[in-house]
C-alpha cells in the first residue's frame, strides 16, 4: 500500500505536521496526503485536530507557527497568509460561513476579487459570470437576492460558487453539511461529485459517517492529534464500524443507549392555539400550534430547515425576537406568560440554541464562566459569586460531558467546535430545568460524544426532566424520542407515537 501511495499522483502532501497551543498539543507529527481528483474525507473525534490541520494548510497559521512541510503539486510551500494559499488554488469553506448578509449573491461571489473594467467594477460581467457559477452549483435563485434571505443550504452553495470563481484546485470543506437538511446534503454531495468529474480535488471534514461512506474515495482518521490511518474506499476498506473503531479507539455497537424508565402521564408543558407574527417582516411564522410534553418524556420535533421549529422554541422561551404572540402556555397546569428568557428560566424552561457561536456562548470568556452563566444565583450568596463553588460545578460538568480542554480556565474560543457545543449543553444542564429544549443538540458532535449526550439525556428524563429535542437528523429523532411532532411551514402537521414513526412517514408530513 505504501508503494502505491508514492507512485500515484499527489496534489497535496503534508508531512510531520506538529502544532501546539498553550497547554494543548493539537497536532503531533501528522501525515496527510491527498491524491489528485479524489474526494478525501477527514474524520475524528471533537478536538482531534481536523480543523487545525486545515488551518495549517490554508495559512491561517502561517509558516513558522507549526512544524512540518506542505507540498502542493510537488512543490514545497510556505504560506504566510490565507491569501497565499488562495493564490495557490486552495479554497477553504469554514463551518461558520464567511458571507456578507446584506450583500447580494453576485456581490458575495466576487467579493475580494471583483471583475474590473478600468478602475470600476464591471457589474454586468459579474452578474453574467455569477449566473454561470450558480448553475454549476445548481443554485436556483435570483443573483441579486440578499444572502440573508437565503437558507443555510443555499448560502453554502454560494460559498462553493465563490471558491469556484477563484479557479480552485483544492476545495476544503469543514463540516459543510452540519447545518443542512437531507435534501440540501444530497445536493451538496452531488455537486462535489460533479466537481470531481471536472478535476477539482476536495477535502471534506464531517461527523456524519453515512455521508462520508457515500462520498469518500479515501478517508483519513485523526485521533488526539495523530494520523491513525488512511483508508481506501475504492478497495472496500471503509465502513461505519471500522471508522468508529479508529476514531474512538473502541467499538460502539449501540448508537442510541437504552432507557430504563417510561415517561409518566403527568403533563408538564402544554401549548395551545399558539400563533406568532414576525413584526419586522409582517409575516405569520407560527400557525395554531398545539402540543404537550409529559414528565420524563423526550419529545422530538422533526421538520425541514426553516420549518419554524426554532421560531417555536424561541417564541416560547421568553420571545427574544419580539414576535407578536397569541395563545396559551401552561407549565405544570398553570398558565404562564413569559416576558423575557429570564421569566422562562424561572418557570423551569431552558433553551439551548442551535447557533452556539452567535447566541449560545460568550466566546471570549472561559469554560467555567460559560457553564455557570445562566445560573449564577445557584453559586452566589448576597450577589457575590463563590468562585470555589463555580470551579467545582464547572469541573463536574467537564468530567460528566467529557469536555476536552486543558482546563476550565480556557477561553471557549479556543475549544474545538464539538467541545463548544458540549459547553453550551452543560450551561443548560446546570440550570436544572423542568423542560429542556435542545435545538440541534448534536450538530457537529462526534459519534462518541453523541453517545455521551444521548446517555445524559436519558439520565435526565429518568430523573424526571422533560426534553424537547429539535433535530434535523431523522435517525436521532427516531432513536431518542418517545413521541414525534412534525413541523412544516409554521404548523404542526402531525403527531406520531414512536411506534408509528418512520423516516418515510416523517418526510411525508414534513413536506406536506
Amino acid at each position, binding site marked *: 500500500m505504501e508503494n502505491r501511495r508514492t507512485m500515484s499522483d499527489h496534489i497535496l502532501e503534508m508531512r510531520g505536521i506538529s502544532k501546539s497551543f498553550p497547554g494543548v498539543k493539537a497536532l503531533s507529527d501528522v501525515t496527510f496526503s491527498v491524491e489528485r481528483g479524489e474526494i478525501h474525507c477527514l474524520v475524528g473525534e471533537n478536538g482531534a485536530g481536523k480543523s487545525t490541520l486545515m488551518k495549517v494548510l490554508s495559512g491561517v497559521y502561517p509558516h513558522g507557527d507549526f512544524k512540518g512541510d506542505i507540498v502542493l503539486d510537488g512543490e514545497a510551500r510556505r504560506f504566510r497568509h490565507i491569501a497565499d494559499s488562495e493564490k495557490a488554488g486552495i479554497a477553504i469553506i469554514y463551518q461558520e460561513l464567511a458571507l456578507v448578509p446584506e450583500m447580494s449573491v453576485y456581490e458575495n461571489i466576487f467579493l475580494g476579487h471583483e471583475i474590473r473594467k478600468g478602475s470600476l467594477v464591471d457589474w454586468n460581467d459579474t452578474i453574467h459570470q455569477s449566473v454561470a457559477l450558480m448553475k454549476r452549483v445548481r443554485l436556483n435563485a435570483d443573483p441579486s437576492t440578499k444572502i440573508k434571505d437565503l437558507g443555510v443550504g443555499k448560502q453554502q452553495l454560494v460559498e462553493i460558487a465563490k471558491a469556484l470563481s477563484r479557479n480552485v484546485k483544492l476545495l476544503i470543506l469543514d463540516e459543510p453539511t452540519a447545518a443542512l437538511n437531507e435534501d440540501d446534503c444530497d445536493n451538496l454531495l452531488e455537486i462535489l461529485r460533479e466537481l470531481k468529474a471536472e478535476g477539482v480535488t476536495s477535502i471534506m471534514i464531517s461527523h456524519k459517517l453515512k455521508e462520508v461512506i457515500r462520498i469518500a474515495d479515501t478517508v483519513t482518521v485523526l485521533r488526539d492529534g495523530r494520523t491513525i490511518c488512511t483508508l481506501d474506499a475504492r478497495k472496500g476498506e471503509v465502513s461505519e464500524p471500522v471508522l468508529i473503531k479508529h476514531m474512538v479507539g473502541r467499538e460502539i455497537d449501540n448508537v442510541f443507549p437504552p432507557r430504563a424508565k417510561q415517561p409518566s402521564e403527568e403533563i408538564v408543558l402544554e401549548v395551545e392555539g399558539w400563533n406568532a407574527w414576525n413584526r419586522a417582516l409582517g409575516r405569520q411564522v407560527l400557525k395554531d400550534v398545539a402540543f404537550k410534553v409529559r414528565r420524563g418524556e423526550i419529545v422530538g420535533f422533526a421538520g425541514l430547515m426553516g420549518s419554524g421549529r426554532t421560531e417555536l422554541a424561541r417564541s416560547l422561551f421568553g420571545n*427574544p425576537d419580539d414576535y407578536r404572540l397569541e395563545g396559551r402556555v401552561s407549565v405544570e397546569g398553570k398558565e404562564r406568560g413569559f416576558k423575557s*428568557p429570564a421569566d422562562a428560566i424561572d418557570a423551569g424552561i431552558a433553551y439551548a440554541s442551535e447557533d452556539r457561536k452567535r447566541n449560545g456562548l*460568550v466566546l471570549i*470568556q472561559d469554560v467555567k464562566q460559560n457553564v455557570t452563566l445562566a445560573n449564577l444565583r445557584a453559586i452566589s450568596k448576597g450577589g457575590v459569586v463563590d468562585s470555589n463553588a463555580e470551579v*467545582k460545578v464547572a469541573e463536574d460538568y467537564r468530567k460528566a460531558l467529557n469536555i476536552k480542554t486543558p482546563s476550565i480556565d480556557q477561553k471557549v474560543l479556543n475549544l474545538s467546535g464539538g467541545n463548544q457545543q458540549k459547553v453550551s449543553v452543560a450551561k443548560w444542564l446546570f440550570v436544572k430545568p423542568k423542560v429542556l429544549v435542545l435545538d440541534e443538540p448534536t450538530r457537529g458532535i462526534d459519534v462518541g460524544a453523541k453517545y455521551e449526550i444521548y446517555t445524559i439525556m436519558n439520565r435526565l428524563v429518568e430523573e424526571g426532566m422533560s426534553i424537547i429535542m429539535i433535530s434535523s437528523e431523522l435517525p436521532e429523532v427516531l432513536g431518542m424520542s418517545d413521541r414525534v411532532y412534525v413541523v412544516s411551514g409554521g404548523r404542526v402537521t402531525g403527531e406520531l407515537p414512536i411506534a408509528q414513526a418512520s423516516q418515510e412517514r416523517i418526510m411525508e408530513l414534513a413536506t406536506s
Partner: protein
Amino acid sequence: MILNDLRKALRQNIRDYTMYFLLFLIMAVFTAMTRGLFMSSRNIANLMNQTGYIAVLAVGMTLVIVIRHIDLSVGYLAGFIGAATAIAMTRWGMPGWATIPFALALGAAAGLVTGFLVARLGIPAFVATLAGWLIYRGLLLMVTMKTGTIIIPDAFFNAIGNGYIPDIMPAETAFLPGLHKLTLLIGLVAIVLFSFSQLRARKSKQGYGFEVLPLPVFVIKLAFMAFVIGYITWIFAGYNGMSWTAVIVIVVVVIFHFVTTKTVLGRHIYAVGGNPEAAELSGISVKKITFTVFAAMGALSGLAGVLYASRLQSATTKAGEMFEMDAITAAYIGGVSAAGGVGRIAGSLVGAIVYMSLTSGMNLLSVDISLQYIVRGAVLAAAVIFDVQTRKRRG
C-alpha cells in the same frame, strides 16, 4: 530556573505588566528630565489630586465600553453637576457634606435618562450621548450665565479636592519626623491585606490543583507590589499625607473592582459585553444591565463634577470640557476593548495615572501644548496597537 518562570509569567500577563512598565518608564524619564522634581512628594500629591476626576470617569467609562457603548456626555454632565452643587450651596444653603449624595443622585438620574434612550428606545449610544453633550453644555452655560464663575466658600466642600486626611500624631515627633503617620499606617495595612488576599487566592487555587505561579515568582511579585504600595505611601507621607481625593478614588476603585470581579452583577455586565444575544438567552436582561451601567456612569460623572469644582473652589462655565475624551483615552490606555466584554477597573485607573503623568510631566518641562497633544495621541495609539497585537498573537 526562576528566570524562566518569571519570563513565562510575564509573557502570559504581558498586557497587564506593560501598563505598569509604561507608567514606570514615564515616571523615570520625567524624573530624570526634571532632576527629581517629578517624583517629589509635592508634585505626586498634586498629580493624584488632578487625576482624581479623570480616574473616576474612566472607571465608569470602562463599564460603558465593556457593554459596547460609549458616553460622550459625561464631561459637561460633570461640569453641570459641579455648577449645580455650587448653586445649591451658595443659594439654597445646602451644607457641604450633602453635596456628594446630591451630585451622585443627580448624576444617576441623568444616567438613567441616557439608559432609557439607549436600552428602551434603541438609539445608538454615540448619538444619544452626543445629544447629552450638547444639552448639558447648554445647561451649564445657562446656570452660570448670570453670575459667570461661582466662587464656593464652603470649607468642607473645598477640602474634597484640596485637603488631606488628618494625622494621628503631630508631624514633628521624634518618631519619623516630617512624615504623615496615618498615611504610613494605611499603607502598611494595605500591604498586609494585599499579601493576605493573594496568599489566600493562591492557597484556594492550589486546593483545586490549579496551576499557580511558581513560589519564587509569586514571592517576587508580592514583594514588588508591596514595594510599590510602600513607596507610594512613603511619597504621600512626605508631603501632607493622603489627600481626600485619593481616598475617594481608592474607595470608588475598590467598590467597582469588587463588583466587576466578584459579583453576579459584574459577571452579567461582562457577559452582555461579550455576547449580548447569548446573555439575553441566558436569562440576563440586557436592558437592565444597560440601565445600571449608564446610571453608574452618571453617578460617577456627578462625583467627578464635585471633585473638579472642589479642586477649583468654584464652578466655571468651561468645567468639564474634554473630560469625556480624557476618560475614554484613559480607559483605552488601560486596556478595554472596543469589541466589548474586555477591560478591567484597575487597568483603567493605571491608564488614568499614566495619562495624567504624561500631562503633568510635560507641564513641568513646559512642553508646548501643541506638542503635548501629539505625544498623548501617540501614547494612546501605541497602547491600543500593542493591545491588538498581543491579543492577535494569543487568540
